[in-house]
């Protein structure tokens, strides 16, 4: 008889599966974590290389001369900004026109769902100013974008100054095959979102913007510049965009090769690269860099103005100038030359960047880990869920035979067969309703909360969210009143929950590996070990500690630690609250999906497991 159709053999296999299940699950978990940690080890990574043939090497002669003039322009810009209090639109328009660009403005306005305490804004009204440098001989089918944000305080003046200086220099060259759009956006991401939505004729987030009068063709690549000092000691590259999307690795390779050519120190995650990979400190530096990238990607928010371009399949990155205490300083002219070189190479492109990887992790700027290498780390964690599901299936299949042997009456098998659909659906539906409440109620009920409690709107929203989250813990006492399920019904519910979690985490990991991996790290052990038979108090504590909310708290603390700015508990808690409010705002303003995912899917899944723990 065949291997799987012989009942004896099958029973032997299933016995093996049941006996070895827990050890294999533990092994898989350790293997997943070890694989992830091993990704940063330099011999396991690959050196970055330029994949796009059209961009080739750094063979280009940069001749940008006007760094000092750019600084003068920056000072003028700063003065006008201080005088007018907001963006000096008229001065910008006049300056760009004098440099020979086609200048247009766009006004936009947006009322946030609740006030943003980090940036102190609620009703946002602003203007974007952009100038288009038309390619001298080419048809207007493609464009490149260079943008600099107009920040309310005294920062990023030099970025705007350098942008205008480059505009003047680029205008006198004849080798541009694509239009170049020089954009100065107000209110950073909100202005950028308004501009992009208007450019692409979409309206995803319900913002109010004026249509664009001038356009430049489909955008092939975009660079955002943040420069707040006259000299820099290093340039930092920011890649993480909305929903953890990353630009094509060729853009990072391009930046790195030009940094080396201009002899500028370049960093990623603001951490320097070390060459001693075989020492502990070298390895830990690589792990820290990679972990920072994972945390930033998992948060789903755009970490620079470039982050919103990625949704439109425009490869973009932010270059941030950092001025720290180092002897070797780079002046504005060299930064200008770097940008000139990058733009000349992007100009050579014939099609969008697509030759290199879209999914990768960077332990340092010259080493990368591609999706084929990092996905098994998540795969090991997902396998645990599948093994558990298989184990439960086997247990459910073995039950009827046990009760038949034990009791022998005809009526019992019918009773102990799989419980009714309603009794399984009840906890699922109630958990999802709680999740829906967590998603909608905080923002909707902020006025109500402000009337009754002495808190500001933002605090009201965040505290309502935490309240609903904690209220969900009391649910098992409520759901049990409505269910009359057999004792073994929890197995079916757990099977459903485990498979649901597996699908959810796998889909998340495909789009945003970091988010899926971090959630899997805490949720998979919970899903694996929870049954009604484990010691209740201890498991309840462990489950709360591994819940999505606490995972977020740990991530906040870990992020601060990795950035070498550790916080105390109180400050960490305040930071955690602001992270929650930022997450909700990101979702409302830019369409970030992390908050809906956590509220509508992950939290209900965890609640179902919580229900199983308190099964009677």
């Amino acid at each position, binding site marked *: 008889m065949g291997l799987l159709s012989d009942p004896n053999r099958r029973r032997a296999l299933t016995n093996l599966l049941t006996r070895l299940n827990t050890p294999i699950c533990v092994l898989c978990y350790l293997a997943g974590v070890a694989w992830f940690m091993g990704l940063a080890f330099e011999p396991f990574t690959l050196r970055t290389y330029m994949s796009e043939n059209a961009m*080739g090497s750094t*063979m280009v002669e940069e001749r940008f001369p006007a760094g000092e003039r750019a600084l003068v322009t920056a000072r003028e810009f700063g003065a006008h900004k201080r005088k007018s209090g907001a963006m000096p639109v008229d001065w910008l328009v006049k300056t760009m026109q004098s440099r020979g660009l086609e200048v247009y403005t766009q006004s936009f306005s947006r009322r946030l769902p609740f006030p943003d305490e980090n940036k102190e804004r609620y009703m946002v009204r602003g203007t974007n100013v952009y100038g288009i440098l038309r390619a001298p001989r080419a048809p207007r089918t493609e464009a490149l974008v260079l943008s600099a944000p107009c920040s309310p305080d005294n920062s990023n003046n030099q970025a705007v100054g350098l942008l205008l200086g480059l505009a003047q220099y680029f205008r006198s060259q004849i080798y541009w095959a694509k239009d170049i759009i020089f954009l100065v956006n107000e209110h950073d991401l909100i202005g950028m979102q308004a501009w992009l939505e208007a450019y692409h004729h979409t309206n995803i987030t319900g913002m109010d913007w004026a249509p664009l009068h001038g356009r430049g063709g489909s955008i092939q690549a975009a660079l955002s510049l943040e420069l707040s000092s006259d000299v820099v000691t290093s340039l930092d590259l920011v890649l993480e965009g909305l929903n953890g999307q990353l630009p094509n690795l060729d853009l990072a390779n391009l930046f790195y090769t030009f940094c080396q050519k201009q002899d500028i120190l370049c960093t990623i995650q603001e951490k320097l690269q070390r060459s001693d990979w075989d020492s502990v400190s070298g390895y830990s530096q690589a792990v820290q860099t990679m972990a920072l990238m994972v945390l930033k990607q998992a948060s789903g928010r755009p970490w620079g103005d470039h982050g919103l371009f990625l949704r439109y399949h425009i490869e973009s990155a932010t270059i941030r100038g950092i001025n720290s205490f180092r002897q070797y300083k780079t002046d504005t002219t060299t930064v200008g030359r770097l940008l000139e070189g990058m733009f000349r190479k992007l100009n050579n492109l014939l099609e969008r960047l697509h030759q290199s990887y879209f999914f990768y992790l960077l332990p340092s700027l010259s080493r990368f880990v591609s999706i084929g290498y990092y996905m098994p780390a998540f795969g090991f964690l997902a396998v645990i869920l599948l093994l558990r599901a298989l184990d439960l299936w086997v247990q459910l299949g073995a039950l009827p035979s046990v009760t038949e042997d034990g009791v022998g009456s005809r009526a019992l098998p019918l009773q102990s067969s799989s419980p009714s659909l309603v009794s399984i659906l009840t906890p699922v539906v109630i958990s999802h309703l709680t999740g829906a409440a967590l998603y909608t109620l905080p923002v909707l009920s902020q006025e109500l909360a402000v009337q009754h409690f002495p808190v500001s709107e933002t605090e009201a929203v965040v505290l309502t969210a935490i309240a609903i989250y904690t209220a969900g813990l009391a649910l098992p006492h409520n759901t049990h009143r409505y269910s009359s399920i057999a004792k073994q019904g929890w197995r079916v519910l757990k099977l459903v929950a485990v498979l649901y979690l597996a699908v959810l985490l796998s889909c998340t990991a495909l789009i945003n590996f970091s988010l899926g991996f971090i959630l899997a790290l805490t949720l998979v052990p919970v899903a694996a070990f929870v049954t009604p038979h484990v010691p209740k108090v201890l498991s309840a504590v462990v489950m709360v500690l591994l819940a999505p909310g606490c995972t977020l708290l740990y991530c906040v603390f870990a992020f601060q630690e990795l950035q070498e700015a550790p916080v105390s508990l109180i400050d960490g808690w305040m930071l955690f609250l602001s992270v929650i409010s930022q997450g909700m705002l990101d979702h409302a303003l830019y369409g970030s999906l992390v908050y809906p995912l956590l509220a509508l899917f992950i939290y209900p899944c965890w609640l179902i497991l919580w229900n199983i723990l308190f099964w009677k």
Partner: protein
Amino acid sequence: GWKRGSSFLPGIDVTDTKLSTSAFLLLHQARAERFFRSDHTNNWAVLVCTSRFWFNYRHVANTLSVYRSVKRLGIPDSHIVLMLADDMACNHRNPKPATVFSHKNMELNVYGDDVEVDYRGYEVTVENFLRVLTGRLPPSTPRSKRLLSDDHSNILIYLTGHGGNGFLKFQDSEEISNVELADAFEQMWQKRRYNELLFIIDTCQGASMYERFYSPNLMALASSQVGEDSLSHQPDLAIGVHLMDRYTFYLLEFLEDIHPASQANMNDLFKVCPKSQCVSTPGHRTDLFQRDPGSVLITDFFGSVRKVEITMETINLTPHTETALAYVDQLPVAQIIHQKPKQKDWHPPDGFILGLWTLILLVFFRTYGIKHLKHIF
């Protein structure tokens, strides 16, 4: 009509008078006989660049520099078929519009004022190339796009672009294989479209393109062997691309020293760009060529040199008494056409196939039992 071998040459005597008259006459007779026995009366060139796009600038510069040399040595535009994508000079990315440079620092503009491109842009296809070679063109094709060679023509064919083992890529959408090329040359031979043909190719793994030739009177040169890449040269920072490939760069330098009266022969051409300069190993093939390469002048292919000798004396030429070789008998056909491809080393059958068949057999016998073996054997 005119019968070869019985011409009569009046003229002015310009030879050395130190020789005795009879020896002098014999020398001239020998030379005149040799002159009239030569089968080469005209020259053609087919220069093809198979790449387009800005980052393939060097392929266009390669072809244009060979074009320039060939024109300088005497082949007129009416005898040159130039096939280029021609999107370099007026490319939006060209900082020096209307120029194509072949030396960095913009020393030499090979585009010039008098370039005549016969097939440009998307007309450079495998089909057009083969039609030009074989002459199978529709009647409406203008003369400038035809290769109007006859059986006394020496043809130079130069190809450059991106290639691989056994193929050459035409403009990103199609390829020509070495077998197709060999068959095209055989068609040319059978239609008496060439006397001798020199084939030069500058691509990666270029030697694979002449491996399959089987027609007589073909000489071939390639810039690299199978498994090697041909490298680019002359990086120019102002323009931002490589301007030439190594092999053609050194070929151009070699040709700059050739003038119409030069006596340099093919052995010198084979020495162009040794491994130290080219990094790849250039190769050549002469086994199908009748004459000894040492006696073949460079100008036989690269120039259009009119051989005119003036003498005051009357020279009697004897008729050609050797039985002329019939055109198709010059090489044994059976030996050429049925050339077997080189025997590859025998490898044992792939492990995967073996494993698959073993699995199938095992399952079969496991299911149906060993007793069925007797039905098979």
